[in-house]
């Protein structure tokens, strides 16, 4: 399949040149190309449009396109940088870049803060923390007393909110993470280190991809 000059290639919306993405993320060009393979699989799983919709994201994470989850929603929203309701290829790579083992810790800390700032006010509020704890308990099918929940939330919140103003700001969050580094454990995906090993044998070609899209077959 000859792709010719890039001007003639029809790309999915939100596609960005792998060289640009490699320069701006911890990924190499061949890793970005492997991520493209993955992205095409995920983004065409329900609606074959080369964009990751919420249902496709849920399908990938939970093997159930209808599984709702507060935290998956937060991740989806943060990956959707343009806030147009879908995750495009460029957004996918840039967002995953933060989860790379070599990504700067400061980026991971900042991303986690935005994840937990449910209403995007620039602060993590006590009610938001409580809402998240309740969501996790519900997800685990665990019912514990209101008192126990309050105790857990109080203990954490008072320790993090060193200025005592009823909310956790980015500075307090950074200090809190320094004290408890496991808090950003979720921000690193070891799978990303082996991404180009994981996807060479992975071949998914949908009808759309064959007729309308053109993947540059020239390796690195």
């Amino acid at each position, binding site marked *: 399949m000859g792709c010719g000059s890039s001007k003639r290639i029809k790309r999915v919306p939100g596609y960005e040149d792998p060289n640009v993405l490699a320069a701006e993320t911890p990924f190499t060009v061949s890793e970005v190309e492997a991520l493209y393979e*993955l992205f095409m699989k995920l983004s065409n799983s329900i609606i074959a449009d080369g964009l990751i919709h919420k249902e496709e994201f849920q399908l990938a994470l939970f093997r159930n396109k209808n599984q709702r*989850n507060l935290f998956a929603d937060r*991740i989806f929203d943060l990956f959707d940088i343009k806030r147009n309701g879908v995750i495009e290829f460029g957004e996918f790579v840039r967002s995953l870049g933060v989860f790379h083992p070599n990504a700067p810790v400061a980026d991971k800390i900042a991303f986690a803060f935005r994840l937990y700032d449910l209403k995007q006010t620039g602060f993590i509020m006590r009610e938001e923390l409580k809402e998240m704890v309740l*969501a996790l308990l519900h997800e685990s099918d*665990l019912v514990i007393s209101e008192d126990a929940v309050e105790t*857990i939330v109080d*203990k954490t919140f008072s320790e993090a909110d060193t200025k005592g103003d009823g909310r956790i700001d980015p500075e307090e969050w950074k200090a809190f993470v320094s004290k408890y580094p496991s808090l950003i454990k979720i921000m690193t995906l070891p799978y990303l280190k082996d991404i180009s090993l994981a996807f060479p044998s992975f071949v998914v070609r949908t009808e759309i991809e064959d007729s309308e899209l053109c993947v540059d077959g020239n390796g690195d």
Partner: protein
Amino acid sequence: MAKLTNLNAFDIISLSSGFDLSGLFVENDEKKEVQFTSTHTFSSITSKLGDIAQNLKLKVKKQGGLMKMEGTSGGRKGALAIDAEIFEFTPSFHLVELRKSSGDTLEFQKTLKQDVRPALKDIVWAWQGQPHQQS
């Protein structure tokens, strides 16, 4: 064995499967870690894990909140070793993470399916990603 009791609210939240992006990359049977919740006590859980390790002829080493179970015979990628980490929500509700720390992932998954999961049946409340089964 010291247990991780200093779980703060953010640690608890981070246990959500919504944050587990590994599903984007691998099928369930290729994952290198699994989690389950248990309504049993810490000592009941460690005791059960110890029994399993013994049956699988794995050597047990305890390192803080971590229980390391190490095989001695070499497989395709070296001996299988599994780490078990136990997190306490309350004295009667724990989350346990079982991770492959070395060896072949396929062998890890096979061991889980054939040996570990059946043996843990009595103490598991729910495996991650699956609803609690009413027995």
